[in-house]
């Protein structure tokens, strides 16, 4: 799948949340979207997901406009029904995507995110980190061509981060596109192949990852606490 973003802009009343965004994403890319609060990261993800219509410009998937079966959006602790059990949530969403999985596949996905023993508990009883693990299991089963993640690291513990990173690496290895918006710069740059920096709705930086990366250090430095480095 190829994604082409052309002259994308989004305005909320008089405020431009995004303006004149142009970039393309290729299969297998892992893209980090970085920037300060209010830069437009979540708005960009929601437009890519097809949940928000752009004010101007377009997002084309494989040359056509958004195809819903192919896009996944992982927001920690969201998009789950609290009063359905862990297993019921997975059954419901896989059925909704016409991918009715048997209970063995669901059990296996739950085992991979260490939630097998909580399968019959309500999602409401899970912690935020566990809900995030459940979302990982959900998208593991649904296998989207484009996976968008909004600040996934904040709620996960160490083993949760390992589970997420293993899942994301697997996604990229099979030619799927992963886009992560996060403030955990060192964590997200460890896996990413490319970084985009947004500031006040404009794309101020777009480069393939390098080692060392002085241009990134310079571009992102102004958003860090005084005297800090993103590597710390």
């Amino acid at each position, binding site marked *: 799948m190829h994604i082409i973003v052309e002259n994308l802009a989004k305005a909320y009343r008089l405020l431009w949340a995004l303006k004149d965004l142009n970039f393309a994403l290729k299969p297998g890319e892992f893209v980090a979207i970085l920037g300060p609060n209010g830069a437009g990261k979540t708005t960009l993800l929601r437009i890519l997901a*097809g949940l928000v219509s752009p004010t101007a410009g377009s997002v084309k998937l494989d040359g056509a406009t958004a195809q819903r079966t192919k896009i996944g959006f992982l927001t920690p602790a969201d*998009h789950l*029904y609290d009063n359905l059990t862990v297993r019921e949530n997975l059954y419901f969403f896989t059925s909704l995507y016409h991918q009715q999985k048997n209970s063995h596949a669901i059990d296996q996905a739950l085992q991979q995110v260490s939630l097998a023993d909580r399968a019959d508990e309500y999602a409401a009883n899970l912690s935020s980190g566990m809900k995030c693990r459940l979302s990982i299991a959900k998208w593991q089963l649904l296998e989207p061509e484009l996976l968008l993640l909004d600040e996934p690291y904040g709620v996960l513990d160490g083993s949760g981060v390992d589970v997420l990173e293993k899942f994301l690496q697997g996604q990229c290895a099979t030619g799927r596109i992963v886009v992560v918006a996060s403030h955990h710069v060192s964590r997200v740059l460890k896996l990413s192949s490319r970084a985009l920096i947004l500031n006040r709705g404009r794309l101020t930086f777009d480069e393939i990852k390098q080692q060392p990366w002085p241009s990134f250090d310079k571009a992102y430095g102004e958003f860090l606490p005084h005297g800090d480095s993103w590597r710390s």
Partner: protein
Amino acid sequence: MALLRQAYLLLWKDSLLELRRRDSLLTMFFFGTLLLFVFHFSFDPAPDKVAEIAPALLWLAFLFTGTLGLAQLFQPERENHCLDALLLSPLDRGALFLAKSCFNLVLMIVVEIVVIPLFWILFNLRSWNLLPQLFLVTLLGTIGFCVLGTITSAITLRARARELLLPLVLFPLMIPVILATIRCMENVLRTGEFGDAIPWLRLLLSFDVIFLTVGILIFDRVIEN
């Protein structure tokens, strides 16, 4: 077929959530019964006048009770941004409309099965033999209410004061359905047969079919905007 399959899946999910939470059903049931008692103590109609006011009182109770149910209709989708999860999926928006309408219809029917006989007892109505015909008319009116209610509930979903806005948008649109249902019930109660009520029944049926079709066709625009 895919539309019906998806609608069934959503209906299964909503029913499961309602069985576990019981928010809507219990609230509607108690409010409906409470209204009947209020009507019973407020009005003391002469026996020959009861048939004239019964349908209006009954539908006043259904209207208020049903609005409570409608206000809760998309509550599971409002929690944890689950509506986004549904909109992100390849779900046919018509299936969502169909499922929500059917779910609300089931809730209303359960409430009506209790409220109508209770009304008959409280107002000392003797025409028990007419209940099957009246249930049929009520069912057609309830379908109209649920279909139109689901559309308006979705329209007001993202509004700040949606609980206030919902009846303001819904009630004027409901006038034709309510009018046809009340006239139809009045005729049945007065004459004991459908004879004079047939034109109202046809009108009611037409409204149901039109609103159902329009709902399936426009729901994607309603829910996505």
